[in-house]
């Protein structure tokens, strides 16, 4: 997101200052897929930040006479309830808009948790090598070797689905993938001259890792984080669909689909629309990840 918020400067008289993020942003804005992804993401971020600005109704307001209404553009639809209402008469559109906050909050922080743990593990493994590397690699393999989703479900069921628990557990389920990417990147820069140079002027290990290696592998991390966000959104949606996400009445997309599941034959709309939101945001992060990767390295064709 830092890329998107960079101030544009007037570069008429000066030789253009070409920072990598500006070049990447420029390239991204010429790609329809990237623009599509960015627009969707910005829209949902806006929903998450100021839901009341967009939502036509109170997402918690129930009404017995407005239960399970179809979308307003269909027969029997009620004006003002664009996507219909759920089994308690709550406005589906408003609940989707308010649900963006939970999903994005949980997924974003889960990615932060997994990134912090994974980047450290990857840096240490790649930089020190030897036994340290072997131990961390074994840990990574061990966790990757298991259907983590099932474990997350089981553990959430025991410790309870609070916001913090969800973030920590989802984050911890994903660190090995980060660690593997970072370790690989560290190995590819570790032998380069500037690391040697830093070491020869007496830079400490921590300084080399954080000031010299980390900035140089940051682009790989950003690309990966975009894909990982998509994955975490999927996991959050799955957990809340199974009733193990953030608890009702707080609207969550997965929870809304689950609510509608029992009324599919009467009112399919309740389950249909929240899923569109999930698919759109996942698609957006996947597209953006693809495009940032290509923009960072146009020579490589990633087929």
């Amino acid at each position, binding site marked *: 997101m830092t890329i998107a918020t960079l101030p544009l400067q007037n570069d008429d008289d000066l030789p253009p200052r070409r920072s990598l993020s500006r070049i990447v942003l420029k390239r991204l804005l010429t790609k329809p897929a990237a623009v599509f992804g960015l627009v969707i993401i910005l829209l949902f971020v806006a929903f998450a930040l100021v839901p009341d600005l967009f939502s036509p109704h109170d997402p918690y307001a129930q009404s017995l006479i407005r239960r399970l209404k179809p979308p307003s553009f269909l027969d029997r639809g009620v004006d003002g309830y664009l996507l219909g209402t759920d089994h308690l008469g709550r406005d589906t559109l408003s609940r989707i808009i308010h649900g963006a906050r939970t999903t994005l909050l949980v997924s974003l922080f889960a990615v932060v948790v997994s990134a912090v743990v994974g980047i450290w593990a990857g840096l240490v493994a790649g930089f020190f090598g030897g036994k340290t590397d072997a131990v961390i690699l074994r840990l990574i393999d061990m966790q990757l070797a298991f*259907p983590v989703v099932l474990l997350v479900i089981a553990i959430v069921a025991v410790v309870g689905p609070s916001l913090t628990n969800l973030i920590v557990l989802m984050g911890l389920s994903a660190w090995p993938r980060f660690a593997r990417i970072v370790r690989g990147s560290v190995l590819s820069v570790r032998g380069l001259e500037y690391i040697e140079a830093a070491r020869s002027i007496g830079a400490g290990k921590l300084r080399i890792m954080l000031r010299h290696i980390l900035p140089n592998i940051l682009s790989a991390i950003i690309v990966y984080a975009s894909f990982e966000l998509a994955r975490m959104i999927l996991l959050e949606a*799955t957990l809340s669909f199974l009733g193990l996400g953030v608890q009702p009445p707080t609207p969550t997309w997965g929870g809304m*689909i689950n609510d509608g599941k029992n009324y*599919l034959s009467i009112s399919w709309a309740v389950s249909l629309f929240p899923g569109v939101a*999930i698919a759109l945001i996942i698609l957006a992060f996947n597209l953006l990840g693809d495009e940032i990767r290509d923009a960072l390295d146009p020579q490589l064709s990633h087929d």
Partner: protein
Amino acid sequence: MLQYVARRLILTLPVLFGILLISFMLTHISGDPTDLILSPDTPDEARELFRRKHGLDQPIWVQFYQFCVHALQGDFGNSLRFNEPATKLVLERLGATTELAVTAMLLAILVGVPAGVIAAYRRNTAADVAVRTITLLGQAVPSFYLGILTIIIFAVWLRWLPSGGRGTWLHLILPATTLALNLVALIARTTRSCMLDVLNQDYIRTARAKGLGESWIVWVHALRNAFIPVLTVIGLQVGLLMGGVVVTETVFSWPGVGRLAIQAIYARDFPVVQAVVLFFALIFVGVNLIVDLLYAVLDPRIGYR
């Protein structure tokens, strides 16, 4: 060969130990296991009795040791809900899950591999774009939502297929397709990129130069070599398949191990949860062992190091 198998088996031991440790800890993470099982107003004497009966008064490492010994014999204790051995409950539902998972996997391979091959061979044509779009969508749509969508379309609107349960092969269509979609996306994507690599190799040019038919070159020469990484992906996706099984079985009320797991989790029926977790882990480890062995069959350059 035997030595290789033995070494691979030994390598899986730490993984199994980790899984045992985690599933043991499930009942201990939130403090007193008796809180999870007994109702809050249970008198202290009854609690004490329960602890003694289930060995919960022993030091934690003794409990873990006991748990491992029993688990390795396939004994996870009785289900708290059904009062039957947890292992028996899992095994009873194994048939339904196998039916679903194998059908989905076959479907995914039969659709995903040819789609990937065609996309790679006809790169940047309409066919390629179509395959790439579908794989992108396939990764974006959560499987539980796809399940709901197919129910809406084929059971509610068209009334062609049943919306849940198990019985005739008609019941199998929706859940199997749902479970297969994410796999199709992954398999097609991997096949496509591997085929692109392989199609540029020298031996493909050689095969063309000696006048072999195009389709023979693509489907036999190229695919055989592209298939190895695809196989790895398939092996690793067994984990995804299991997560998918849990969700799909829940959506379609499919009476398998996944639905049992979710119901057990809701009911805090921990012996069953532990049995399922360990059971899935075993399958996963087993499948990946088989995949590793298949490498050497498919590619003679990979020896049993």
